[in-house]
């Protein structure tokens, strides 16, 4: 008897398929990891795809504005999953004094995340990056492909994206270019939580309410706001999501700095 597959099974199967296509198509793959909930689902799916061993490095872009609890989680998970972790800091920008204390969030995010990523790419010559972005996070992400090429300047050619259908992707990168592989594109925030619940995926404690506050999306310390919430279990978080009508990234300042801030950030190489 064939048991029917659920929506989450379908998402999982599709993500695993994408992981395997990416690992096969590219020689030199890396996976950015922010320790956030999506990132940890990504790790989990990679473990499933490759039967317990992630065969490529995991990259943490450390902005130096990280929550200490996230760093603790990073070190625990690195051990626990036997990850090949690479940590990258844009030390040059920090030395120049780039920081939230003195600069606007778009500039800081660009320098400490995108430029740091560019530096890591230049060092390691990765031809594919596996990212955890989702369509429902932002209207420009909604227009993404599973395999999304970036040119040598990291630019996203959103006006002329390659066609992608029937499980066939843009699976080649010219020299100096790379492809963003996005296995979570079809997942929603609620899907992520339901999957974390189903699979019992470890995540940092900051997502759960303490003293009436919790984080819904985690970024740099100075520009990430907690929301008021009593949700202290995954079930309660899911229930909360069912009723809320504010968007997930409302607490992330760099997205809202100006109109279409996300498009501008993303066109320049931000995840």
């Amino acid at each position, binding site marked *: 008897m064939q048991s029917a597959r659920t929506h989450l099974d379908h998402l999982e199967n599709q993500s695993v398929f994408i992981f395997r296509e990416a690992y096969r198509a590219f020689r030199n793959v890396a996976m950015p990891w922010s320790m956030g909930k999506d990132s940890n689902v990504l790790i989990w799916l990679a473990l499933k795809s490759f039967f317990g061993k992630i065969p490529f490095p995991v990259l943490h872009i450390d902005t130096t504005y990280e929550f200490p609890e996230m760093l603790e989680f990073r070190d625990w998970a690195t051990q626990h999953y036997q990850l090949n972790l690479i940590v990258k800091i844009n030390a040059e920008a920090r030395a120049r004094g780039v920081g939230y204390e003195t600069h606007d969030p778009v500039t800081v995010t660009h320098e400490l995340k995108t430029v740091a990523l560019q530096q890591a790419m230049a060092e390691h010559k990765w031809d594919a990056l596996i990212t955890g972005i989702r369509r429902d996070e932002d209207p420009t992400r909604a227009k993404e492909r599973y395999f999304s090429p970036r040119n040598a300047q990291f630019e996203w050619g959103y*006006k002329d994206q390659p*066609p992608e259908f029937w499980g066939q992707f843009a699976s080649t990168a010219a020299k100096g270019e790379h492809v963003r592989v996005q296995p979570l594109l079809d997942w929603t925030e609620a899907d992520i939580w339901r999957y974390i619940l189903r699979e019992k995926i470890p995540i940092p404690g900051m997502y759960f309410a303490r003293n009436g506050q919790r984080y819904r999306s985690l970024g740099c310390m100075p520009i990430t706001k907690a929301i008021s919430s009593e949700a202290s279990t995954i079930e309660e978080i899911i229930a909360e999501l069912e009723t809320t009508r504010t968007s997930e990234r409302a607490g992330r300042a760099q997205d809202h700095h100006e109109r279409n801030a996300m498009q501008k950030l993303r066109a320049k190489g931000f995840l």
Partner: protein
Amino acid sequence: MSDEAQRLKIVFVGHVDHGKSTLIGRILHDTGSLPEGKIAAIQQACEAERMEFEYAFLLDALLEEQAQNITIDTTQIPFRTALRRYVIIDAPGHKEFLKNMITGAASADAAMLVIAANEGVREQSRRHAYLLSLLGVRQIIVVVNKLDLANYSEQAFREIEGEYRQFLSELGMTAREFVPASAKQGENVARRTDPALQWYSGHTVLEALDHVESTAALPNQPLRFCVQDIYRFDARRIIAGKIESGSLRVGDQLIFSPANKSSAVATIESWNSPAPEEAIAGDSVGITLREQIFVERGHVASHENDAPIETNRCRADIFWMAEEPLRKETEYILRVATQELKCKVVAIEQVMDSSTLATEIGERERLARNEVGRVTLQTRAPLVVDNHDRIPALGRFVLVDGGRICGGGIVFGGVYTDRTTVKSKNIFWSEGEITPTHRAKQNGHRGAVVWLTGLSGAGKSTIALALEGELFQRAMHTYVLDGDNVRHGLNSNLGFSAEDRVENIRRVGEVAKLMADSGTVVITAFISPYRLDRRRAREIALEGNAEFIEVFVDAPLQVCEERDPKHLYKKARAGQIRDFTGIDAPYEAPDDPDIVVRTDEQNVDESVATIMEQLLPRLRADDPID
């Protein structure tokens, strides 16, 4: 309402500007699906830029889209009604962005085809329906939008309905229903309010949506398990891939096409959950096999009695999306599921304008952008397909040129043959001029010297011939050099003295180098007992920039002596022949061979599989020469 059920995917298509994005925006708004403040934020932004507010901006998020009031690329948004959950896909209507429309529509279960009442049926209204039929999207709802511009007139609605019904019937399609609406006014989207629409008593757009049937996976289809990769991260050798149709169970006997090798499923692997006994269509799985046969990416596993078509030629309908036209007799990369092979179109029999359906019969040389052609494809290596109407996942393909997907197509009219009796005869096309530098690229693989070494009776010749067959089957250039074809001609003046043996190996090394340089995968099967000689052969090959792969065909002397196929050991033991390797002459086993096969522990197929697995990656045409 079930959260568990798979989402129904609905794509909105139709001519540019007919109101697809507006309709979606309106649906999201009228059902309270938008995040708080979203509309206000867009209104504010529009005011600041002195633009009129558009519901379409909820989807058309790119600045360029808003500035031109046009959808450039496709978007997907989750959405729910009281009945169930959906994914809504917005597709662009402009002809320029047809590839994006196809990207959006290809995964849909059903389509809303939007026609504006003031403009009526236009070029993309027709083309999109035709493409939906090629993409296999069968359920269509037609929304006659902007009816406010026609004063909600029934006549205007009926005229469009009549014309478009007629068009669909020519395609062999029928719409589920025709729904009048005004996306801008929100009329008959989520509810009906305007008295002018009283003549209509059918569904609202939302109700029509909820009446679409879920397309459940077809049961009892033949198994098609498409191999993505082979993993050996630990002791397991896991064949990873996706089950495109049917199901497989532990213990099932599988046949892998096009290699035609057969083995039973030993396990279905998993991480952090109990190993399943069965996997079904849609599952991404990893399996291990009972016998270590050679399997690689692109192979398709099926059950033995219901295998796919294996062929070098097939007929197909192709839609072309690239600026550069498709040209006959030009090489493209064909991708079917995980297979990737070189192909060319050898005949373009008829061409159809995908909008007017005007058909042009007769031979053509090219297929222009947005045209659909009925063609014959030919591949060099065997291709594994199904007819699209039988198993869609194996019956559809894309054509790639310069790394970019340029077209897609579906296969029809293929003939299934009984795999147990017929072994395909491959047809090859003649090569054009081949420059030495592009030889590897043209061949699809590099030349190399595969040097087998081992005792007499260890199995070198048997393995060499089986390996040659395996490579040949994949349309690779290959040739075996062994005592039989070398001793009689090239080396007929050599005997078995120590000096002559050295010279024998040297000549073999030189010939192998030349052949490898010409692009051939040369397999040599000589005892070649001395390390020094083998090192010389390696150096010769490397001088010629050819890859040299030393394979140790290993079996204990005792086993070889028991096998003694040519009774040479017996004669050597009896002193009838002298200087026999292993008896009265030494065999220096390789210190660090590239590949080892143990013929006392593995059968021939398993040995060949071991070699193939390690050999093929080293023959890839795109690898830089070390």
